[in-house]
Protein backbone atom coordinates (compact mmCIF):
# COMPACT_ATOMS: atom_id res chain seq x y z
CA UNK A 1 0.00 0.00 0.00
CA UNK A 2 1.10 3.58 -0.48
CA UNK A 3 1.19 5.99 2.44
CA UNK A 4 1.02 9.43 0.87
CA UNK A 5 -2.54 9.34 -0.43
CA UNK A 6 -3.83 8.29 2.98
CA UNK A 7 -1.82 11.00 4.69
CA UNK A 8 -2.86 13.61 2.17
CA UNK A 9 -6.52 12.72 2.58
CA UNK A 10 -6.14 12.82 6.34
CA UNK A 11 -4.37 16.16 6.24
CA UNK A 12 -6.90 17.61 3.80
CA UNK A 13 -9.80 16.46 5.94
CA UNK A 14 -8.34 17.76 9.18
CA UNK A 15 -7.23 21.08 7.70
CA UNK A 16 -10.61 21.66 6.12
CA UNK A 17 -12.45 20.94 9.34
CA UNK A 18 -9.82 22.20 11.75
CA UNK A 19 -9.17 19.01 13.64
CA UNK A 20 -6.01 18.92 15.82
CA UNK A 21 -4.47 15.89 14.15
CA UNK A 22 -0.96 16.47 15.53
CA UNK A 23 0.04 17.86 18.91
CA UNK A 24 3.50 18.65 20.25
CA UNK A 25 3.26 18.43 24.04
CA UNK A 26 6.20 19.62 26.14
CA UNK A 27 5.98 17.92 29.52
CA UNK A 28 8.79 19.90 31.14
CA UNK A 29 11.30 22.59 30.33
CA UNK A 30 13.75 21.18 32.86
CA UNK A 31 16.76 19.55 31.24
CA UNK A 32 19.89 17.65 32.14
CA UNK A 33 21.73 19.32 29.29
CA UNK A 34 22.29 23.05 28.98
CA UNK A 35 22.59 23.46 25.25
CA UNK A 36 24.09 26.77 24.28
CA UNK A 37 21.48 27.46 21.61
CA UNK A 38 18.37 26.38 23.55
CA UNK A 39 15.40 28.76 23.57
CA UNK A 40 13.87 27.44 26.79
CA UNK A 41 13.82 28.71 30.35
CA UNK A 42 14.74 25.54 32.23
CA UNK A 43 13.30 26.60 35.56
CA UNK A 44 10.09 24.88 36.61
CA UNK A 45 7.42 27.56 36.88
CA UNK A 46 4.66 25.15 37.80
CA UNK A 47 4.38 22.20 35.46
CA UNK A 48 1.08 20.47 35.06
CA UNK A 49 0.71 17.46 37.31
CA UNK A 50 0.33 14.00 35.82
CA UNK A 51 -3.40 14.20 36.51
CA UNK A 52 -3.61 17.51 34.68
CA UNK A 53 -1.62 16.16 31.74
CA UNK A 54 -3.78 13.04 31.57
CA UNK A 55 -6.89 15.18 31.63
CA UNK A 56 -5.51 17.21 28.77
CA UNK A 57 -4.75 14.02 26.85
CA UNK A 58 -8.35 12.88 27.30
CA UNK A 59 -9.48 16.11 25.70
CA UNK A 60 -6.99 15.84 22.85
CA UNK A 61 -8.12 12.31 22.06
CA UNK A 62 -11.72 13.46 22.11
CA UNK A 63 -10.84 16.31 19.75
CA UNK A 64 -9.30 13.88 17.25
CA UNK A 65 -5.57 14.06 17.87
CA UNK A 66 -3.75 11.03 16.51
CA UNK A 67 -0.08 12.08 16.34
CA UNK A 68 1.23 13.00 19.77
CA UNK A 69 4.82 14.02 20.42
CA UNK A 70 6.12 14.31 23.96
CA UNK A 71 9.09 16.59 24.26
CA UNK A 72 10.77 19.09 26.54
CA UNK A 73 13.16 19.90 28.18
CA UNK A 74 14.07 16.35 28.95
CA UNK A 75 10.97 14.22 29.34
CA UNK A 76 12.68 11.51 31.37
CA UNK A 77 13.30 13.99 34.17
CA UNK A 78 9.62 13.69 34.99
CA UNK A 79 9.30 10.87 37.51
CA UNK A 80 5.69 10.42 36.38
CA UNK A 81 6.58 10.16 32.70
CA UNK A 82 5.64 6.50 32.38
CA UNK A 83 2.39 7.12 34.20
CA UNK A 84 1.58 9.71 31.53
CA UNK A 85 2.67 7.35 28.76
CA UNK A 86 0.46 4.61 30.11
CA UNK A 87 -2.51 6.92 29.94
CA UNK A 88 -1.60 8.04 26.43
CA UNK A 89 -1.39 4.41 25.36
CA UNK A 90 -4.91 3.77 26.56
CA UNK A 91 -6.08 6.63 24.38
CA UNK A 92 -4.54 5.10 21.22
CA UNK A 93 -2.28 7.97 20.21
CA UNK A 94 0.54 7.43 17.74
CA UNK A 95 3.37 8.25 20.13
CA UNK A 96 6.68 9.93 19.36
CA UNK A 97 9.29 11.24 21.76
CA UNK A 98 11.99 13.87 21.50
CA UNK A 99 14.77 13.32 24.00
CA UNK A 100 18.50 13.64 24.50
CA UNK A 101 18.36 9.94 25.49
CA UNK A 102 20.77 10.34 28.39
CA UNK A 103 18.40 8.43 30.66
CA UNK A 104 17.48 5.66 28.24
CA UNK A 105 18.20 2.19 29.61
CA UNK A 106 17.29 -1.23 28.19
CA UNK A 107 14.56 -1.53 30.80
CA UNK A 108 13.11 1.83 29.83
CA UNK A 109 13.32 0.96 26.14
CA UNK A 110 11.33 -2.19 26.88
CA UNK A 111 8.65 -0.13 28.63
CA UNK A 112 8.56 2.43 25.83
CA UNK A 113 7.96 -0.29 23.28
CA UNK A 114 5.32 -1.96 25.42
CA UNK A 115 3.54 1.37 25.70
CA UNK A 116 3.40 1.81 21.95
CA UNK A 117 6.07 4.46 21.45
CA UNK A 118 6.79 4.21 17.75
CA UNK A 119 9.44 6.87 17.17
CA UNK A 120 12.17 8.59 19.15
CA UNK A 121 14.10 11.61 17.92
CA UNK A 122 17.49 12.17 19.52
CA UNK A 123 19.61 15.29 19.21
CA UNK A 124 23.17 14.59 18.08
CA UNK A 125 25.26 17.64 17.25
CA UNK A 126 28.42 16.09 15.87
CA UNK A 127 30.27 12.84 15.39
CA UNK A 128 33.03 14.41 17.46
CA UNK A 129 32.27 13.94 21.18
CA UNK A 130 34.07 17.12 22.14
CA UNK A 131 31.97 19.24 19.75
CA UNK A 132 28.71 17.63 20.88
CA UNK A 133 29.54 17.97 24.57
CA UNK A 134 30.63 21.58 24.12
CA UNK A 135 27.14 22.36 22.81
CA UNK A 136 25.21 20.40 25.46
CA UNK A 137 27.59 21.53 28.23
CA UNK A 138 27.15 18.02 29.61
CA UNK A 139 30.41 16.04 29.67
CA UNK A 140 29.96 12.51 28.38
CA UNK A 141 26.58 13.29 26.84
CA UNK A 142 27.64 12.28 23.33
CA UNK A 143 28.55 8.76 24.36
CA UNK A 144 25.38 8.32 26.39
CA UNK A 145 23.07 9.68 23.67
CA UNK A 146 24.79 7.55 21.08
CA UNK A 147 24.60 4.41 23.19
CA UNK A 148 20.83 4.73 23.43
CA UNK A 149 20.29 4.50 19.69
CA UNK A 150 21.02 0.78 19.21
CA UNK A 151 19.19 0.01 22.44
CA UNK A 152 16.01 1.63 21.15
CA UNK A 153 16.43 0.09 17.72
CA UNK A 154 16.79 -3.36 19.22
CA UNK A 155 13.41 -2.83 20.83
CA UNK A 156 11.79 -2.07 17.49
CA UNK A 157 11.55 1.68 17.99
CA UNK A 158 12.24 3.93 15.02
CA UNK A 159 15.07 6.30 15.89
CA UNK A 160 15.91 9.51 14.09
CA UNK A 161 18.89 11.79 14.67
CA UNK A 162 18.14 15.50 14.73
CA UNK A 163 21.02 17.90 14.30
CA UNK A 164 20.55 21.65 14.61
CA UNK A 165 23.36 23.36 12.75
CA UNK A 166 25.08 26.32 14.37
CA UNK A 167 28.45 27.97 14.37
CA UNK A 168 29.93 25.34 16.66
CA UNK A 169 29.04 22.31 14.55
CA UNK A 170 28.39 23.45 11.00
CA UNK A 171 31.29 21.53 9.56
CA UNK A 172 30.29 18.39 11.44
CA UNK A 173 27.22 17.71 9.35
CA UNK A 174 28.97 15.26 7.04
CA UNK A 175 30.20 13.37 10.06
CA UNK A 176 26.69 13.21 11.47
CA UNK A 177 25.45 11.85 8.17
CA UNK A 178 28.09 9.14 8.21
CA UNK A 179 27.36 8.37 11.83
CA UNK A 180 23.64 8.01 11.13
CA UNK A 181 24.33 5.78 8.19
CA UNK A 182 26.58 3.55 10.30
CA UNK A 183 23.82 3.33 12.89
CA UNK A 184 21.18 2.72 10.23
CA UNK A 185 18.94 5.60 11.25
CA UNK A 186 17.50 8.57 9.36
CA UNK A 187 18.57 12.09 10.20
CA UNK A 188 17.52 15.68 9.77
CA UNK A 189 19.46 18.93 9.87
CA UNK A 190 17.98 22.17 10.99
CA UNK A 191 19.41 25.61 10.34
CA UNK A 192 16.95 27.23 12.73
CA UNK A 193 18.15 28.87 15.88
CA UNK A 194 15.21 30.66 17.42
CA UNK A 195 15.04 33.49 19.96
CA UNK A 196 14.44 32.56 23.58
CA UNK A 197 10.82 32.06 24.55
CA UNK A 198 11.04 35.17 26.71
CA UNK A 199 12.17 37.15 23.69
CA UNK A 200 15.87 37.01 24.54
CA UNK A 201 18.11 37.18 21.52
CA UNK A 202 21.44 36.11 22.96
CA UNK A 203 21.16 32.61 21.52
CA UNK A 204 21.06 34.02 17.99
CA UNK A 205 24.81 34.55 18.21
CA UNK A 206 25.09 30.82 17.53
CA UNK A 207 23.37 31.09 14.17
CA UNK A 208 25.35 30.47 11.03
CA UNK A 209 25.12 33.28 8.51
CA UNK A 210 23.49 32.60 5.20
CA UNK A 211 26.82 32.93 3.41
CA UNK A 212 28.49 30.44 5.73
CA UNK A 213 25.65 27.98 5.11
CA UNK A 214 26.44 27.85 1.42
CA UNK A 215 28.51 24.65 1.66
CA UNK A 216 25.50 22.96 3.25
CA UNK A 217 23.00 24.39 0.79
CA UNK A 218 25.22 23.32 -2.09
CA UNK A 219 25.83 19.82 -0.85
CA UNK A 220 24.12 17.42 -3.25
CA UNK A 221 23.87 14.86 -0.46
CA UNK A 222 21.35 17.07 1.27
CA UNK A 223 18.06 17.43 -0.47
CA UNK A 224 16.62 20.78 0.55
CA UNK A 225 13.20 19.62 1.49
CA UNK A 226 11.27 19.44 4.68
CA UNK A 227 10.76 16.30 6.71
CA UNK A 228 7.46 14.53 7.02
CA UNK A 229 7.26 14.02 10.78
CA UNK A 230 3.95 12.24 10.69
CA UNK A 231 4.56 9.88 7.83
CA UNK A 232 3.81 6.40 8.94
CA UNK A 233 6.74 4.95 7.04
CA UNK A 234 10.18 6.12 7.95
CA UNK A 235 12.59 7.37 5.37
CA UNK A 236 16.35 7.28 5.32
CA UNK A 237 16.46 10.21 2.96
CA UNK A 238 18.59 13.07 4.25
CA UNK A 239 16.67 16.27 4.77
CA UNK A 240 16.99 19.83 5.83
CA UNK A 241 14.11 20.68 8.03
CA UNK A 242 12.96 21.76 11.44
CA UNK A 243 13.67 19.68 14.51
CA UNK A 244 11.48 21.82 16.71
CA UNK A 245 8.30 22.06 14.70
CA UNK A 246 5.61 19.48 15.20
CA UNK A 247 3.93 20.52 11.97
CA UNK A 248 2.82 18.16 9.29
CA UNK A 249 4.04 18.58 5.76
CA UNK A 250 1.72 17.73 2.93
CA UNK A 251 0.70 18.89 -0.49
CA UNK A 252 -2.77 19.19 0.97
CA UNK A 253 -1.94 22.55 2.56
CA UNK A 254 -2.15 24.50 -0.69
CA UNK A 255 -2.30 28.19 0.22
CA UNK A 256 -1.80 28.06 3.98
CA UNK A 257 1.71 28.49 5.38
CA UNK A 258 1.84 25.33 7.50
CA UNK A 259 -0.15 23.10 9.80
CA UNK A 260 0.04 25.43 12.83
CA UNK A 261 -3.42 26.16 14.17
CA UNK A 262 -5.07 24.35 11.28
CA UNK A 263 -4.52 20.73 12.27
CA UNK A 264 -1.69 20.95 14.77
CA UNK A 265 -0.79 22.84 17.90
CA UNK A 266 1.62 23.03 20.80
CA UNK A 267 0.97 22.56 24.52
CA UNK A 268 3.46 23.84 27.08
CA UNK A 269 4.26 22.20 30.45
CA UNK A 270 2.11 24.89 32.05
CA UNK A 271 -0.95 24.09 29.96
CA UNK A 272 -0.66 26.97 27.53
CA UNK A 273 -1.89 26.21 24.03
CA UNK A 274 -0.19 27.79 21.04
CA UNK A 275 -0.54 27.21 17.29
CA UNK A 276 3.08 26.02 17.26
CA UNK A 277 6.11 26.01 19.52
CA UNK A 278 7.58 28.63 17.21
CA UNK A 279 4.50 30.83 17.18
CA UNK A 280 4.02 32.75 20.44
CA UNK A 281 0.33 33.49 20.16
CA UNK A 282 -1.24 32.22 23.38
CA UNK A 283 -4.62 30.73 22.51
CA UNK A 284 -5.63 29.65 26.01
CA UNK A 285 -4.69 27.55 29.02
CA UNK A 286 -5.82 24.04 29.81
CA UNK A 287 -5.88 24.69 33.52
CA UNK A 288 -8.77 27.06 33.15
CA UNK A 289 -10.31 26.16 29.81
CA UNK A 290 -11.29 23.04 27.96
CA UNK A 291 -9.20 22.23 24.92
CA UNK A 292 -12.22 22.22 22.62
CA UNK A 293 -13.17 25.72 23.77
CA UNK A 294 -9.64 26.95 23.09
CA UNK A 295 -9.35 25.18 19.75
CA UNK A 296 -12.75 26.29 18.48
CA UNK A 297 -13.01 29.67 20.15
CA UNK A 298 -9.58 31.28 20.26
CA UNK A 299 -9.29 34.55 18.42
CA UNK A 300 -5.56 33.98 18.01
CA UNK A 301 -6.14 30.65 16.29
CA UNK A 302 -8.77 32.24 14.06
CA UNK A 303 -6.21 34.89 13.15
CA UNK A 304 -3.65 32.24 12.20
CA UNK A 305 -6.18 30.27 10.21
CA UNK A 306 -7.08 33.31 8.16
CA UNK A 307 -3.56 33.67 6.74
CA UNK A 308 -3.17 32.81 3.06
CA UNK A 309 0.24 32.83 1.44
CA UNK A 310 -1.18 34.31 -1.74
CA UNK A 311 -2.34 37.33 0.26
CA UNK A 312 0.85 38.07 2.20
CA UNK A 313 1.54 41.75 1.57
CA UNK A 314 5.24 41.39 0.80
CA UNK A 315 6.05 37.74 0.28
CA UNK A 316 3.25 37.00 -2.18
CA UNK A 317 4.83 39.31 -4.75
CA UNK A 318 8.43 38.33 -4.04
CA UNK A 319 10.15 37.09 -7.22
CA UNK A 320 12.16 34.47 -5.34
CA UNK A 321 9.26 33.15 -3.26
CA UNK A 322 9.77 29.64 -4.59
CA UNK A 323 13.18 29.49 -2.89
CA UNK A 324 11.89 30.69 0.45
CA UNK A 325 10.93 28.58 3.47
CA UNK A 326 9.26 31.35 5.41
CA UNK A 327 8.00 30.32 8.83
CA UNK A 328 5.03 32.39 10.01
CA UNK A 329 6.03 31.91 13.64
CA UNK A 330 9.52 33.23 13.04
CA UNK A 331 8.06 36.03 10.94
CA UNK A 332 6.20 37.02 14.07
CA UNK A 333 9.08 36.44 16.48
CA UNK A 334 11.78 38.07 14.39
CA UNK A 335 9.93 40.49 12.19
CA UNK A 336 7.04 41.24 14.52
CA UNK A 337 4.40 40.47 11.90
CA UNK A 338 2.64 37.18 11.31
CA UNK A 339 2.05 38.28 7.73
CA UNK A 340 5.44 39.80 7.18
CA UNK A 341 8.88 38.88 5.92
CA UNK A 342 12.05 38.64 7.97
CA UNK A 343 15.67 38.91 7.13
CA UNK A 344 16.80 35.38 7.75
CA UNK A 345 14.26 33.85 5.38
CA UNK A 346 14.99 36.43 2.72
CA UNK A 347 18.74 35.93 2.98
CA UNK A 348 18.48 32.19 2.63
CA UNK A 349 16.03 32.47 -0.25
CA UNK A 350 18.47 34.74 -2.04
CA UNK A 351 21.33 32.29 -1.52
CA UNK A 352 19.23 29.39 -2.74
CA UNK A 353 18.04 31.32 -5.76
CA UNK A 354 21.61 32.26 -6.61
CA UNK A 355 22.65 28.63 -6.36
CA UNK A 356 19.78 27.74 -8.68
CA UNK A 357 21.11 30.14 -11.29
CA UNK A 358 18.94 33.19 -10.71
CA UNK A 359 20.84 36.32 -11.69
CA UNK A 360 21.22 38.78 -8.81
CA UNK A 361 18.25 37.54 -6.78
CA UNK A 362 16.84 39.97 -4.28
CA UNK A 363 13.77 39.53 -2.14
CA UNK A 364 10.98 42.07 -2.19
CA UNK A 365 11.63 42.75 1.49
CA UNK A 366 15.24 43.65 0.82
CA UNK A 367 14.40 45.48 -2.39
CA UNK A 368 12.02 47.77 -0.54
CA UNK A 369 14.48 48.22 2.31
CA UNK A 370 11.84 47.28 4.82
CA UNK A 371 14.09 45.39 7.17
CA UNK A 372 16.18 48.39 8.09
CA UNK A 373 14.33 49.73 11.10
CA UNK A 374 13.07 48.46 14.37
CA UNK A 375 10.68 45.60 14.22
CA UNK A 376 8.17 44.38 16.72
CA UNK A 377 8.94 41.00 18.15
CA UNK A 378 6.96 38.55 20.18
CA UNK A 379 7.71 36.08 22.87
CA UNK A 380 6.11 33.33 24.90
CA UNK A 381 5.69 35.32 28.11
CA UNK A 382 1.96 35.52 27.73
CA UNK A 383 2.09 36.64 24.15
CA UNK A 384 3.24 40.17 25.02
CA UNK A 385 5.17 41.90 22.29
CA UNK A 386 8.72 43.11 22.74
CA UNK A 387 11.08 45.00 20.50
CA UNK A 388 13.89 43.56 18.47
CA UNK A 389 16.45 46.06 17.38
CA UNK A 390 18.22 46.28 14.08
CA UNK A 391 21.49 45.39 15.74
CA UNK A 392 20.23 42.05 16.95
CA UNK A 393 18.28 41.06 13.87
CA UNK A 394 20.92 39.19 11.88
CA UNK A 395 20.04 38.58 8.28
CA UNK A 396 19.43 34.92 8.82
CA UNK A 397 16.89 32.24 8.30
CA UNK A 398 13.93 30.39 9.68
Amino acid at each position, binding site marked *: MTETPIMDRLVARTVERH*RPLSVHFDLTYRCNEKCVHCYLDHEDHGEMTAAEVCGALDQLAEAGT*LFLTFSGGEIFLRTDFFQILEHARKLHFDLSLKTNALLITPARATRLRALGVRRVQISIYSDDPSVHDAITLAPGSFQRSLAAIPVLKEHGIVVKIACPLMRQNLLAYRGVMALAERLGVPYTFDMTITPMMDGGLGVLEHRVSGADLLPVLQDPALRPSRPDPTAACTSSEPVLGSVTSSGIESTAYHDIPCSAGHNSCYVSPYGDVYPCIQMPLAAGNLRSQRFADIWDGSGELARVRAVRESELPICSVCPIRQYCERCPGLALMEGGDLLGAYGRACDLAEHKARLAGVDNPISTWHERGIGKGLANGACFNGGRASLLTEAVLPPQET
Partner: protein
Amino acid sequence: MTPCAEGCWQKNPSLAWREVEGETVIISPDESVMHELNGTASFIWRHVDGHNSAAQIAELLASEYDVTPMAALEDTETLLTELAERRLLVPAESVEKESGTP
Protein backbone atom coordinates in the same frame (compact mmCIF):
# COMPACT_ATOMS: atom_id res chain seq x y z
CA MET B 1 -7.17 -16.90 10.07
CA THR B 2 -10.63 -17.47 11.45
CA PRO B 3 -12.50 -15.74 14.23
CA CYS B 4 -12.19 -17.09 17.74
CA ALA B 5 -14.56 -19.75 18.93
CA GLU B 6 -17.08 -17.20 20.14
CA GLY B 7 -16.76 -15.23 16.89
CA CYS B 8 -15.42 -12.21 18.75
CA TRP B 9 -12.53 -9.99 17.87
CA GLN B 10 -10.67 -7.34 19.74
CA LYS B 11 -8.68 -4.41 18.38
CA ASN B 12 -4.98 -5.16 18.56
CA PRO B 13 -3.96 -3.26 21.71
CA SER B 14 -0.66 -2.12 20.19
CA LEU B 15 -2.36 0.00 17.54
CA ALA B 16 -2.73 3.74 17.32
CA TRP B 17 -6.01 4.80 15.79
CA ARG B 18 -8.46 7.63 15.59
CA GLU B 19 -11.79 8.19 13.92
CA VAL B 20 -11.72 11.53 12.15
CA GLU B 21 -14.94 12.83 10.66
CA GLY B 22 -16.41 9.36 10.30
CA GLU B 23 -13.34 7.72 8.79
CA THR B 24 -10.74 5.82 10.76
CA VAL B 25 -6.98 5.86 10.44
CA ILE B 26 -5.02 3.05 12.06
CA ILE B 27 -1.25 2.82 12.51
CA SER B 28 0.43 -0.44 13.35
CA PRO B 29 3.64 0.49 15.17
CA ASP B 30 5.41 -2.77 14.43
CA GLU B 31 5.45 -2.10 10.70
CA SER B 32 4.82 1.66 10.76
CA VAL B 33 2.03 1.13 8.28
CA MET B 34 -1.05 3.31 8.06
CA HIS B 35 -4.48 1.90 7.25
CA GLU B 36 -7.65 3.79 6.41
CA LEU B 37 -11.24 2.67 6.89
CA ASN B 38 -14.18 4.25 5.12
CA GLY B 39 -17.38 5.18 6.90
CA THR B 40 -18.95 1.73 6.80
CA ALA B 41 -15.76 -0.01 7.85
CA SER B 42 -15.34 2.55 10.61
CA PHE B 43 -18.81 1.68 11.87
CA ILE B 44 -17.78 -1.97 12.07
CA TRP B 45 -14.43 -1.08 13.68
CA ARG B 46 -16.22 1.01 16.28
CA HIS B 47 -18.28 -1.99 17.33
CA VAL B 48 -15.39 -4.43 17.57
CA ASP B 49 -15.00 -4.55 21.32
CA GLY B 50 -14.18 -8.12 22.26
CA HIS B 51 -17.80 -8.90 22.99
CA ASN B 52 -19.77 -8.29 19.81
CA SER B 53 -19.76 -11.20 17.37
CA ALA B 54 -19.71 -10.69 13.62
CA ALA B 55 -23.43 -11.45 13.53
CA GLN B 56 -24.17 -8.86 16.20
CA ILE B 57 -22.11 -6.22 14.42
CA ALA B 58 -23.82 -7.07 11.14
CA GLU B 59 -27.16 -6.62 12.80
CA LEU B 60 -26.16 -3.16 13.95
CA LEU B 61 -24.83 -2.40 10.48
CA ALA B 62 -28.08 -3.43 8.82
CA SER B 63 -30.05 -1.24 11.19
CA GLU B 64 -27.82 1.75 10.51
CA TYR B 65 -27.33 1.46 6.75
CA ASP B 66 -29.65 0.62 3.90
CA VAL B 67 -28.39 -2.93 3.44
CA THR B 68 -29.93 -6.37 3.78
CA PRO B 69 -28.98 -8.47 6.81
CA MET B 70 -27.28 -10.99 4.56
CA ALA B 71 -25.20 -8.41 2.78
CA ALA B 72 -24.34 -6.78 6.10
CA LEU B 73 -23.11 -10.09 7.49
CA GLU B 74 -21.07 -10.81 4.39
CA ASP B 75 -19.47 -7.35 4.46
CA THR B 76 -18.78 -7.59 8.16
CA GLU B 77 -17.17 -11.01 7.96
CA THR B 78 -15.09 -9.99 4.96
CA LEU B 79 -13.79 -6.90 6.71
CA LEU B 80 -13.12 -8.66 10.01
CA THR B 81 -11.16 -11.34 8.22
CA GLU B 82 -9.10 -8.78 6.34
CA LEU B 83 -8.39 -6.79 9.47
CA ALA B 84 -7.39 -9.95 11.29
CA GLU B 85 -5.07 -10.94 8.47
CA ARG B 86 -3.36 -7.59 8.89
CA ARG B 87 -3.17 -8.20 12.66
CA LEU B 88 -5.30 -5.13 13.30
CA LEU B 89 -7.70 -7.44 15.09
CA VAL B 90 -6.81 -10.33 17.33
CA PRO B 91 -9.03 -12.96 18.92
CA ALA B 92 -10.63 -11.47 21.99
CA GLU B 93 -9.38 -14.14 24.33
CA SER B 94 -5.75 -13.63 23.24
CA VAL B 95 -5.94 -10.01 24.34
CA GLU B 96 -7.18 -11.08 27.72
CA LYS B 97 -4.24 -13.46 28.05
CA GLU B 98 -1.74 -10.87 26.86
CA SER B 99 -3.06 -8.20 29.17
CA GLY B 100 -3.31 -10.59 32.10
CA THR B 101 -6.98 -9.91 32.66
CA PRO B 102 -9.09 -12.86 33.81
